[in-house]
């Protein structure tokens, strides 16, 4: 090797030759700056978060006591805080189920029937809402769900006002108007996370071999049976992969319930309010560990079901 490559002159050239011969060093040299950034800024911050969660807030002075204690974690188990957690997990589960149901036909159509230009169009149609402004999307729903808004108008035009009023009268999920109810919060969550469910389900469905379906039909299965026993099991990893997104994003959202919903807190709002006006960073930190633990359990379960092969 050395015999063929004549040594180049000049500092830069020599440096580049050196790196060409020592690929490992080049990799290390390239990797160092971004790795340092992620480790210091991100992992460092996560460590700070963990550390803060073991600090506590002095109730009288309002100052953070920088001594390690489990007292802050104990506060998480107070009933009002447990309610917040339960409320958030229930919402995340409901949103995930609804998204899976709405996403499946779109993904199925895109994977099996759309071809060529139509397929590209489908892809764009899913990607554009995914990438468009989060806050604008939430705002759009504030317009839709407002008491004087389009849904109330549409219900009146179709003489279905009684139906809307009936739904709003349902205890717990209802409220004075859609924009001040759990139902409203639920709709907005379902909407903004839907593309995150469509894409992995579509990816899983694309991988279902066509001849499996033909074989199933040849062996005498009705379309419904083929769907239940062949397509759905093969799409399941995709659904689980999508559910990781919808579940975790709902679990950690702090904006949607502020804008659309009744004033009861979700985990994200609790974290945001605690660190802000209350100045209780330790409790906010401990609270944010809760979705991490829940997601850890969820991911462990998803891994067992093979969800990561579909990402």
């Amino acid at each position, binding site marked *: 090797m050395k015999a063929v490559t004549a040594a180049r002159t000049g500092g830069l050239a020599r440096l580049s*030759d050196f790196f060409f011969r020592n690929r490992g060093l080049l990799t290390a040299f390239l990797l160092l700056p971004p790795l340092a950034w992620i480790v210091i800024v991100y992992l460092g911050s996560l460590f700070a978060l963990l550390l803060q969660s073991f600090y506590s807030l002095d109730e009288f002075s309002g100052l953070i006591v920088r001594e390690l204690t489990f007292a802050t974690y104990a506060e998480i188990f107070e009933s009002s805080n447990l309610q917040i957690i339960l409320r958030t997990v229930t919402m995340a589960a409901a949103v995930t189920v609804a998204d899976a149901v709405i996403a499946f036909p779109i993904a199925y159509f895109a994977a099996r029937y759309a071809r060529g230009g139509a397929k590209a169009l489908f892809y764009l149609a899913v990607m554009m809402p995914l990438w468009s402004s989060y806050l604008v999307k939430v705002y759009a729903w504030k*317009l839709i769900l407002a008491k004087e808004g389009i849904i109330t108008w549409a219900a009146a035009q179709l003489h279905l006002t009684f139906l809307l009023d009936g739904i709003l009268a349902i205890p717990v999920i209802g409220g004075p108007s859609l924009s001040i109810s759990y139902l409203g919060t639920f709709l907005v969550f379902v909407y903004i996370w839907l593309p995150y469910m469509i894409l992995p389900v579509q990816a899983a469905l694309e991988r279902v071999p066509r001849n499996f379906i033909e074989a199933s039909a040849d062996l005498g299965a009705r379309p419904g049976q083929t769907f239940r026993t062949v397509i759905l099991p093969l799409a399941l990893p995709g659904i689980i992969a999508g559910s990781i997104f919808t579940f975790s994003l709902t679990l950690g959202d702090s*904006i949607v319930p502020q804008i659309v919903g009744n004033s009861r807190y979700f985990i994200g709002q609790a974290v945001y309010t605690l*660190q802000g006006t209350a100045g209780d960073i330790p409790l906010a930190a401990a609270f944010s560990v809760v979705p991490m633990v829940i997601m850890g359990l969820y991911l462990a379960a998803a891994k067992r079901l093979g969800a990561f092969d579909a990402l």
Partner: protein
Amino acid sequence: MRSEGAAWPLRFAAAAGLAFLHLPLALIFLYAFTTEEKSFQFPPPGYTARWFGTAWFDRPDIWPPLVLSLKVALFATLLALIFGTLAAAALARARFFGKESLSLLFILPIALPGIITGIALRSAFDIMNLPFSTWTIVLGHATFCIVVVYNNVLARFRRTSASMIEASMDLGADGFQTFRYVVLPQIASALLAGGMLAFALSFDEVIVTTFTAGQQATLPIWMLGELLRPRQRPVTNVVAIFVIAVTFIPIIFAYYLTRDGEHIAGGGK
């Protein structure tokens, strides 16, 4: 033989799903032209274009957040381009123990919910007694923008052939010349696409920013304030249309740039 067309319930469900995804944004445009500024009355009682003028001339509170958002997005994109490209270049072809965990590490900031990144940074600022500034916002944004550039450039590196680099070196170019004349032209459009996506992501980000901005307002934070305490509602819609434009144009452009990535020279070896 079964026909290849989809059954009508499937067509209907898919179409309804897509409509559900797209119709809400249309309302943002409609309400920018309403004459009603105190409520979200539908249908609007009348139509006017005057809110565009109001937003531009009579609402000086919009400009500082806009400038701050542009500044933050610019710096965050720049940092993300540098770090994301370096990380992608390092991990594209190297094989070593722990590589999978390393690439996971770069994806982590976008995989974990925004409040975790937000409260983590907030905790760190508090421990270090770091006061809020433009840079605390940039710090957070750059961290989750790196992965966007990283993903784009990594995908491009995987599609380009390593033999081009070897050929360049064999023909006497040094590493820097090879980078300048062979590698850079190959990854340029991926860089541009990644950079634009990162810009859009940063310009639009609100959750992490609420934790790292303190009293400062970026444009999304200004919008959040308007949503919680509305005044002149159609003006918010005008700004929303602007935000849609600023985020959409780069995304469409990025899609266009990376669309036919498979046809890059040397990719089909």
